């Protein structure tokens, strides 16, 4: 197990390095921050060159990239081109907001999809199963931005129950988290159902029943843990998609998280902020997947002893 984790850690380092390289390179193709800063037209070429020099953009790409890498190791991502705030400060403000949103929605979706998925699997082919499947298909069919806007229209504008945007109190959480959770639940419920059906057809489930155990014990003790491997794998993969989806949801609800930060940085060609935020997000995704690998071993002894 230790060797396995070590191998994964090495892989993870390479992944993060590759991400930083691609991001720093790609953003430099997207346009000139000096023009963005000044507003095109009203300055001379000399002014632009001075700005580039001040921002360090006149150096070769390799030098800029290595400087960025060196910064990462000491936790210094440089300063924003817009106003000079340290990037690490911006990230430390935005990251908790995003993680809070991501984990709340993930947790909500697990709490909802596990019992629903099991219920559907047990009643395979009967009406509760059909109902769960139809509802999940409906949930899957909504684009998240549309769902977010509809929620704002209904809960904030029509009913006036929830604040339409920002992060003001616990009630600000409900709509963004719910938007994400609905989409996640729609996929997870199907996954739990399929995985449970597979497990329930195994002989050890019949053996558990022949021992006289209650249905609840058979399902939640004997079956669920065996069905958890594909679910945990999928949640690991989902986390990447979740971060992508969060950018849009954060925009709609004006949520001050990493998505908003990165989005604004792209618009402004704010290289340090973009590099920094993408690197941190990549780091998190890689970390989550590492945790997923470790979780396998905890769930399934067959992997542990390999």
């Amino acid at each position: 197990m230790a060797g396995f984790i070590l191998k994964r850690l090495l892989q993870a380092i390479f992944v993060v390095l590759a991400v930083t390289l691609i991001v720093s390179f790609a953003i430099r193709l997207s346009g000139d921050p000096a023009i963005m800063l000044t507003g095109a037209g009203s300055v001379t070429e000399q002014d632009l060159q001075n700005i580039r020099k001040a921002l360090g953009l006149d150096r070769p790409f390799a030098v800029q990239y290595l400087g960025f890498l060196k910064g990462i190791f000491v936790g210094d991502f440089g300063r924003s081109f817009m106003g000079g705030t340290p990037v690490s400060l911006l990230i430390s403000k935005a990251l908790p907001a995003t993680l809070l949103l991501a984990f709340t929605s993930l947790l909500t979706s697990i709490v909802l999809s596990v019992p629903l998925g099991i219920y559907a699997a047990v009643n395979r082919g009967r009406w509760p199963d059909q109902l769960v499947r139809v509802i999940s298909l409906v949930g899957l069919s909504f684009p998240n931005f549309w769902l977010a806007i509809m929620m704002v229209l209904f809960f904030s504008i029509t009913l006036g129950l929830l604040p339409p945007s920002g992060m003001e109190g616990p009630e600000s959480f409900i709509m963004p988290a719910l938007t994400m959770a609905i989409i996640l639940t729609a996929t997870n419920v199907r996954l739990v159902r399929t995985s449970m059906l597979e497990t329930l057809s195994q002989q050890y489930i019949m053996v558990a029943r022949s021992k006289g155990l209650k249905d609840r014990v058979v399902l939640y003790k004997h079956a669920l843990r065996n069905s958890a491997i594909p679910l945990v794998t999928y949640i690991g993969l989902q986390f990447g998609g979740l971060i992508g989806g969060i950018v849009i949801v954060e925009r709609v609800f004006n949520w001050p998280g990493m998505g908003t930060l990165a989005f604004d940085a792209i618009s402004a060609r704010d290289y340090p902020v973009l590099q920094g935020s993408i690197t941190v997000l990549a780091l998190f995704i890689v970390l989550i997947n590492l945790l997923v690998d470790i979780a396998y071993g905890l769930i399934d002894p067959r992997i542990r002893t390999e």
Partner: protein
Amino acid sequence: MSGETVKHVPVGEPLLSVRSLSVEFGSAEGAFRAVKNVSFDVQPGKTLAVVGESGSGKSVTSLAIMRLTDYTGGRISSGEVLFRPSKGQALDLVHAADTSLRSIRGNEIAMIFQEPMTSLNPVFTVGNQIAETLVLHEGLSAREALARAEALLEKVRLPDAKKLLDRYPHQLSGGMRQRVMIAMALACNPKLLIADEPTTALDVTIQAQILNIIRDLQQEMGTAVIFITHDMGVVAEMADDVVVMWKGEKVEEAPVREIFAAPKHPYTRALLSAVPRLGSMTGQPLPKRTPVIVIEDGAPKEVGETHVQDTADYAKPILQVDKMTTRFDVGKTFFGRVTHRVHAVEEVSFDIYPGETLALVGESGSGKSTIGRTLQQLIEPTGGTVRFDGHDMGSMSSAERRRLKQEIQYIFQDPFASLDPRHTIGFSVAEPIVVHNLLQDRKAIDRRVQELLDQVGLLPQHAKRYPHEFSGGQRQRVCIARALASNPKLIIADESVSALDVSIQAQIVNLLMELQQQKDLSYLFITHDMAVVEKISHRVAVMYLGQIVEIGTRQAVFENPQHSYTRKLLAAVPIADPARERAKRLIEGEIPSAVRPVGQEPLIHRMREVEPGHWVAIEADLLRGAA
């Protein structure tokens, strides 16, 4: 189900009484009746064998007794199952409330299932799984339950019971898992044990051990047993009474000796005629085809002819295997250095002659299938030479190697998995012809396919059908037709009849022998089934841990076995004859593993010739190698 019915059954009556039980699957309109009006009694402490082939409804019956069919989409449409628990009155399990049913399951009636590899939950320890039953039914604390679990593991003769409690199922062999399963089933001293094909998936020496354990514990604890099986040999060894099932119905019921001595129903007679009996060929030097009784339109009919298989020509071998070695790397360090190897095949030498069947017998892990795959060029050998028709395989060009694939064909074990479900069987049979470019004209290919189907006893119009439209036996015929398509000289049959019902198996064995005679085919017949080997083979090679320990004519090996492992293997085979004394010989121990650390090479034992053509490994070498 509700409305508990309590029936009074006087003392001295059967422990379990199944009365006109019917079980249906599917919707009420299009219901399929898997079990039809089946009735039988089980006496306390006795063993009832329920025998039948696939689709006979025997497993559904076994599940229906504890109403486990509720979980498989089955519905008990009529009948009752009266059970006399140790306390209280007899109870109809069909109409019992869920709570009383649960108090009987695992407590008064316990069950053992067929597949030991999948019947234990992979994520819980052995100790946990046994203790669970005890905590549930006897209200023991976790610690008390684990102590009892340890005692139970000792009872099923598992060594090192204490350590075993903390092991997970995947760390145990199939035989050990089945013993754990038995320990779990017997945890609460049930009055009735239902065993559904408990030894079918196990090696024959392990099967013998498990049967002994079940028999001993049954006597010790006075447990009644319902033994579900398709194996008449096991029936003869285990049963007091026998119920024969066919197509969902009980066709015959009698004490075990009567069933074997004077079967009444035509199906029972057909079944018994198909069972290969070890020892039936004693005194005969060559394999022999014998007619099989099949049921056609409800009436028994004899098919096939008696024919001595004098097909082998010992002038010049078609295949010569010399010191073939095949190893696989398994364990690796962090830096990719190999630490362990599977020594699947170690310096194995044998010849096969034209028209001859050489049987390669051994238990799981003996390396017999690896030899087959190596000859089929699916695996590269680590060492040794293979000559086909005098040509060295190692020095062949790739075109010659392709040509060799045409000469050596393969029939696999599982006829369900070895045909592409998305192609017609005509396509599958034609494939070798197309691949080897034997015929170009579409019409000629079609004609050839129809001819091949005819040869294996199928109809030409079957070519347009898909595999799922055929039964297991028919599919195996398709696989044989495909193997014949490229006009091979040698066919490797890897457990090709093991998954088939005995009546089908007998017909396929006859077909293989008939084809051998017609086409002068050689077979390498890989199997664990000694009774089939006795019927089909000219010569036999017995494999153990990657090496041949005994090789000779079938008559020599079966009638004069010299190696202790050959003797053990033969003694372990259940004989379909209840009048015969039950083998008391103790077969102990697991089959050792062929995985060894790098650097620890297995010892290659020397062979000595005990009579012309009959070679045996010198056992002192083997013992040194094991130490």
